[in-house]
């Protein structure tokens, strides 16, 4: 490298620095550091004249590195990088010596000047070792893959598509719509869920930039941000969507009945079916697992009934290979399975149902056309017990976390029940009411006060069948009384869990899941929409339990992140990343498992994918042969920095310290 020609710019920051640190002495001291060819001080280095001072000094003194001794790099590093760049200096040759937050604001007297001198000397050594760097750039696909067609995925797909980019919306089931399509009304406004969702489904279906792949699953993902290759399996539906005219004759003809998953098992359906009337894409699907046999000799009732000739038993799965630039994962949630809640009789007592079953019952499009009727004998239940936190907030037996939406939907269920059965009585067992959200608390209050729902604070100990009643034993912890309700129907607010298959999908995408299987965000506070793998974004309950407005917001947020990536002419990535000195590398492979981003591959030597590396340097510290380096924080730089930081200083330098 060329001889260092470092410029040092000491900022007074008004009195913030100059009131404590002797800035003149510091400027003189800087001038004595080998390699420093220019040093000055000024009131406010970040002001326009201050920045101009920096630019001019760079030009006039042919500086090949600068150190601004001022505030924290978090404040003004970008400012001075731009100032330097405008004078023709590579921005990665700019360093900040933090003598304000970490010196003048926390120390007093001559010791502050001594420490400022040490900090400055340390950073000058770093500047001397810096190399000019260029951000890595790369072209990319401008297509977006959205996995999961619930409301979060639909919103993400629409926002990306409306920004002018192509979207592949992959949905495992026969229709998009997700959980929201199953819901009756939404809290706290009591909007009809399907009524507000179906326009979005139709918009997605009609959008020229969106291609919906239903009955499809992501099978394999290779590549990296901007340039993924995705293999998608589109399962055969055995119905030609082009020919099918939705007459429904096939359903009439089908002799098979199986449990209807859209209706949460409250009714059954034929082996060939459409999940619900507004399904998108609007087409029938032949359920391979239910069908008596694709061999027409065994049963070909549906094909014979189909006048359009849409049923094709020979249809094969399709494998699609697609290149995409960004991926949004919105795979949604499930409820804790029935068999797990033995103490509440769930799965054994027919009149103990889940919140989603209640949704279907309360839905005008559901099997009871919105009437609340208990499954065992179809009677209208007069006493209904709702049990919150069924499997949530229970670290000993089930899930330690709060499922977040149950307090609100239980209040809504209780309200819908009281409106449907005015002479009935709803009871709600709860631990706490968590009603954080716009209009949420008011809604719960309304349900408690106006709709006469009896809220009982406490847990239910036991639920059992007694004649045609379901006995509920619990405790009201506010009165200390034991409570016994002879209920006609019990509704469990089952804990929310991530969708089945999420762990396998996460593995394919090389993103992490948390201990419960929810997708892990890159940072819980500051990067909640991003997975750790660059270019993978998260939306909806796949990332953690959330309600509709949060899912929609996150869908839009993830879309904005994806569009930011897709709209860039080139992908730009910080060059301050790891690099391998190939002649030193023995391909031992110790580095690769250190990397949380899977940026390192090891063949003849280790190789760092610059676009994936985030520059943490953990691999560098692990490399036993010193072949791995972190650009602009190389080993020799740090060694020189340490020597400068710890140097014995002359009395004069210590300024009487």
């Amino acid at each position, binding site marked *: 490298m060329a001889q260092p020609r470092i410029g040092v710019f000491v900022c007074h920051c008004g009195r913030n620095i100059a009131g404590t640190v002797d800035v003149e002495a510091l400027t003189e001291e800087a001038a004595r550091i080998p390699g420093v060819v220019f040093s000055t001080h000024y009131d406010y280095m970040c002001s326009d004249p201050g920045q101009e001072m920096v630019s001019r000094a760079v030009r006039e003194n042919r500086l090949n590195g600068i150190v601004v001794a001022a505030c924290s790099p978090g404040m003004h590093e970008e400012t001075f990088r731009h100032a330097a760049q405008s004078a023709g200096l590579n921005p990665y040759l700019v360093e900040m010596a933090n003598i304000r937050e*970490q010196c003048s604001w926390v120390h007093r007297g001559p010791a502050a000047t001594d420490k400022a001198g040490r900090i400055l000397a340390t950073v000058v050594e770093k500047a001397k070792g810096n190399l000019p760097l260029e951000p890595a750039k790369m072209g990319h696909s401008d297509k977006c893959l959205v996995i999961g067609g619930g409301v979060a995925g639909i919103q993400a797909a629409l926002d990306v598509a409306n920004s002018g980019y192509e979207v592949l919306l992959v949905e495992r089931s026969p229709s998009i719509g997700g959980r929201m399509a199953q819901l009756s009304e939404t809290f706290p406004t009591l909007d009809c869920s399907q009524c507000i969702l179906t326009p979005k489904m139709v918009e997605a279906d009609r959008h020229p930039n969106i291609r919906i792949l239903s009955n499809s699953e992501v099978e394999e993902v290779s590549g990296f941000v901007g340039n993924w290759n995705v293999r998608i399996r589109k399962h055969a539906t055995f119905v030609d969507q082009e020919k099918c005219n939705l007459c429904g004759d096939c359903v009439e003809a089908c002799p098979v009945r199986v449990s209807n998953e859209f209706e949460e098992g409250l009714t059954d359906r034929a082996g060939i079916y459409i999940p619900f009337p507004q399904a998108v894409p609007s087409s029938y699907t032949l359920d391979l697992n239910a069908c008596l046999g694709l061999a027409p000799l065994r049963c070909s009732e549906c094909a014979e009934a189909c006048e359009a000739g849409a049923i094709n038993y020979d249809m094969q799965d399709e494998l699609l290979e697609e290149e995409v630039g960004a991926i949004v994962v919105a795979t949604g949630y499930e409820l804790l399975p029935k068999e797990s809640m033995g103490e509440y009789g769930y799965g054994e007592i027919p009149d103990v149902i889940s919140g989603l079953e209640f949704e279907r019952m309360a839905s005008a499009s559901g099997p009871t056309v919105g009437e609340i009727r208990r499954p065992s004998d179809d009677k209208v239940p007069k006493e209904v017990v709702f049990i919150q936190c069924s499997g949530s907030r229970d670290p000993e037996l089930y899930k330690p976390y709060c499922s977040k939406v149950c307090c609100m939907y239980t209040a809504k269920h209780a309200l819908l029940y009281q409106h449907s059965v005015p002479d009935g009585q709803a009871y709600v067992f709860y631990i706490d009411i968590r009603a954080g959200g716009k209009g949420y608390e008011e809604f719960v209050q309304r349900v408690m006060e106006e709709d006469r729902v009896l809220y009982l604070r406490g847990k239910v100990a036991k639920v059992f069948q007694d004649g045609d009643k379901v006995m509920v034993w619990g405790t009201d912890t506010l009165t200390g009384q034991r409570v016994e309700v002879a209920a006609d129907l019990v509704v469990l607010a089952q804990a929310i869990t991530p969708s089945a298959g999420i762990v396998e999908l996460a593995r394919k995408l090389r993103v992490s899941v948390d201990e419960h299987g929810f997708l892990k965000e890159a940072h819980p506070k500051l990067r909640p929409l991003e997975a750790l793998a660059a270019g993978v974004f998260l939306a909806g309950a796949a990332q953690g339990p959330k309600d509709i407005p949060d899912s929609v917001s996150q869908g839009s947020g993830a879309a904005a992140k994806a569009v930011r990536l897709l709209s860039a002419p080139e992908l730009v990535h910080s060059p301050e990343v790891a690099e391998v000195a190939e002649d030193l590398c023995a391909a031992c492979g110790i580095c690769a498992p250190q990397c949380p981003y899977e940026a390192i591959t090891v063949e003849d030597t280790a190789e760092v994918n610059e676009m994936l590396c985030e520059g943490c*340097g953990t691999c560098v510290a692990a490399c036993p042969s010193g072949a791995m380096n972190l650009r602009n924080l190389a080993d020799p730089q740090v060694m020189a920095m340490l020597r400068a*930081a710890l140097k014995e200083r002359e009395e004069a330098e210590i300024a009487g310290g």
Partner: protein
Amino acid sequence: MAEQKHEPKIAAFLCRWCAYAGADLAGTNRVAYPPNMIPIRVPCSGRVEPSWVIEALRSGADAVLIGGCHPGDCHYVSGNYKARRRMSLLQKVLKELGVEPARLKLTWVSASEGMRFAQVVRDYVEEVRALGPYHGEFGVPRELHEVEENVGQLVRQAVSHG
């Protein structure tokens, strides 16, 4: 005389996302702490090489402080865990070399813990003051210094894989 007045010197490697930001917050909140610690900003505690600790002690530090993100909060997922493994191994190596393991401290400070950062520095300065000055020699000073070019390398090989 100089011994009696000895002010401990501590080299600190602070991860930019948590401990360094915590130190900035201590500054913003004007929480005073002793000036004995000289900070070096690193991307992650996982970047800190064991040989840096050795070099710091050789260069005149009485102790080395490494500040990272709290477990589970690492900006780079798991760098802090790797730092913890490496540094606990290094403490064992230091002990073998006749250096008090307390001269190396790994701690967690979040970006919101300005008060905690100041307290960590105050406590550690006192702890190091009680240990007394470090004499810049590893038990068998001269011999080791002759091979010191290799010390970093040896330590790196011994403990870096964690």
